[in-house]
């Protein structure tokens, strides 16, 4: 249950985070009081926790889709505090639980990839799909082993949830990233698709040495993937194990710990 020493700042760091929902009303919920989290560069962190433990709120605070109460958030040494959500997206890639959020369903696979390829540059009046990049897109799609390289002119809306999520993951990691956020990205998929997406996640994260924060409800994935495991409960970290200790940890231990804290909440 070691929480990082506060002196050294991580590549991704959340410092003295306070967040209260509906302040001043009867529904007031204090989630974070002086919450701290540091992630070193190239670390793959898996986060587990019951509903309402604050896992997703951390992601939302990092991305800026939730306003910060007080505290400091920095990614790659840049202060994120004043940046809007879309400005932070230049450094952050996010894959959502809902497969339809990570791509534009109406556009074709090719057009989606071309848009993502242009991330960070200006979107002007040049042709949307650069013909010379098509072969590169095809080669990236071949990585998925889903046969999508032959369907590049199909709208993404006609793909299955698993295919879309795999594509979203690929698209999201095309541009250079400081932080990859995986927000229960396998939760809406069937077991086979989620295995495929998880395998792909592992491959892409390792290939590009991405600093990654993955929230999951799947304890098996949390143990099997990543260099560090964090369990959250009521807005604080109750378990934080690094690589060495993690290998000794089995699903059973984690389930017991999970049940223990869940019982406190009565669910």
């Amino acid at each position: 249950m070691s929480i990082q020493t506060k002196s050294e700042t991580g590549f991704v760091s959340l410092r003295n985070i306070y967040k209260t929902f509906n302040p001043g009303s009867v529904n007031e919920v204090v989630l974070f009081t002086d919450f701290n989290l540091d992630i070193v560069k190239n670390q793959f962190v898996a986060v587990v926790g019951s509903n309402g433990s604050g896992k997703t709120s951390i992601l939302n605070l990092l991305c800026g889709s939730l306003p910060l109460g007080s505290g400091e958030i920095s990614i790659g040494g840049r202060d994120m505090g004043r940046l809007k959500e879309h400005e932070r997206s230049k450094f952050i890639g996010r894959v959502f639980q809902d497969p339809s959020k990570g791509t534009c369903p109406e556009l074709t696979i090719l057009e989606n990839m071309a848009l993502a390829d242009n991330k960070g540059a200006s979107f002007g009046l040049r042709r949307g799909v650069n013909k010379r990049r098509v072969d590169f897109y095809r080669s990236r799609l071949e990585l998925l082993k889903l046969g999508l390289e032959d369907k590049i002119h199909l709208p993404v809306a006609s793909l299955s949830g698993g295919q879309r999520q795999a594509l979203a993951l690929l698209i999201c990691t095309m541009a250079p990233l400081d932080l990859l956020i995986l927000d229960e990205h396998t939760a809406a998929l069937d077991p086979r698709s989620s295995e495929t997406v998880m395998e792909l996640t592992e491959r892409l994260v390792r290939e590009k040495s991405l600093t990654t924060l993955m929230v999951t409800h799947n304890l098996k994935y949390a143990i099997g993937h990543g260099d560090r495991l964090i369990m959250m409960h009521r807005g604080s970290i109750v378990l934080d194990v690094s690589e060495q200790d993690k290998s000794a940890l089995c699903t059973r231990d984690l389930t017991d710990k999970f049940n223990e804290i869940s019982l406190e909440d009565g669910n």
Partner: protein
Amino acid sequence: MDIIIGLIRNVLEEGFIYGIMAVGVYITYRVLELPDLSVDGTFPLGACVTAALIRAGVNPWLACVIAFMCGAAAGSVTGLLHVKLRITDLLSGILVMISMWSVNLAITRGSAVVQFYNEDTIFTSGPAALLKGDLRIWRFLILAAVVCIIVKLLLDFYLKTQSGLLLRSAGDNPQYVISLGKDPGSMKILGLAIGNGCTALSGSVLAQQAQSANIQSGTGMVVMALAAVIIGTNLFRKLRFMKATTAVILGSILYKACLVIAMQLGLPTNYLKLLMAVIFTVALVSNNMLGGRRKKQNVNPNKI
């Protein structure tokens, strides 16, 4: 026979002129999914600006371009109200629509109708002057079609550019635009500018055809444009090779045809707006029914 040909010519002429507006509204209503009511104000804006410019001796083609820009500026105001001040899309449109009334009166210096007979228009000067003899009676149709098709081709081109793809994503999945590091709000403003620019251009061409601008000409334009968009995109949805912009122009022609047929069958002019509303209602209802069916087909439980 001449009467029928005359009617068809009339339907096509007006269909193409209103088609310019319809492709613009297609951008706001179908691509961005914003019901934009400011169209009722920007249509006469285009007409009034054109009348004022042509009376001042400006080249009619240049007047068309300036009308487009004025419409785009008004559309950006709708967008800014909606995106920056967080006023709902419908109300932002209404605010601009109502304020355009005063703007238009200011442009026409207080008169409700501005005529510019005997002045050069796109139908009488420049390339149109080359149409001689028998072609003269077709010149309205030819020029309206040319302008409409140019606008359509430019929009088709735009929707395939990087900015165009981003605009389409902004309507479909704003979160995706955010993940690309861009603000979907700016794309909405841009889309509203394009939509209202086309609407003002449509008003400009209509004013030049009639050689007068009427500040009341905007009433019912939202209904007409939306009906053209919905009729066009629904009827020709099955035809995959057809671009949506083409479908919308055909929708506009069909809609005009319905109105002309009703008038020829003896419907008094006073009931025209009522008929417009009825046709629009039928289009909306059939859209919902067809849309509902389409949705069910899309959901395949094995695929999720």
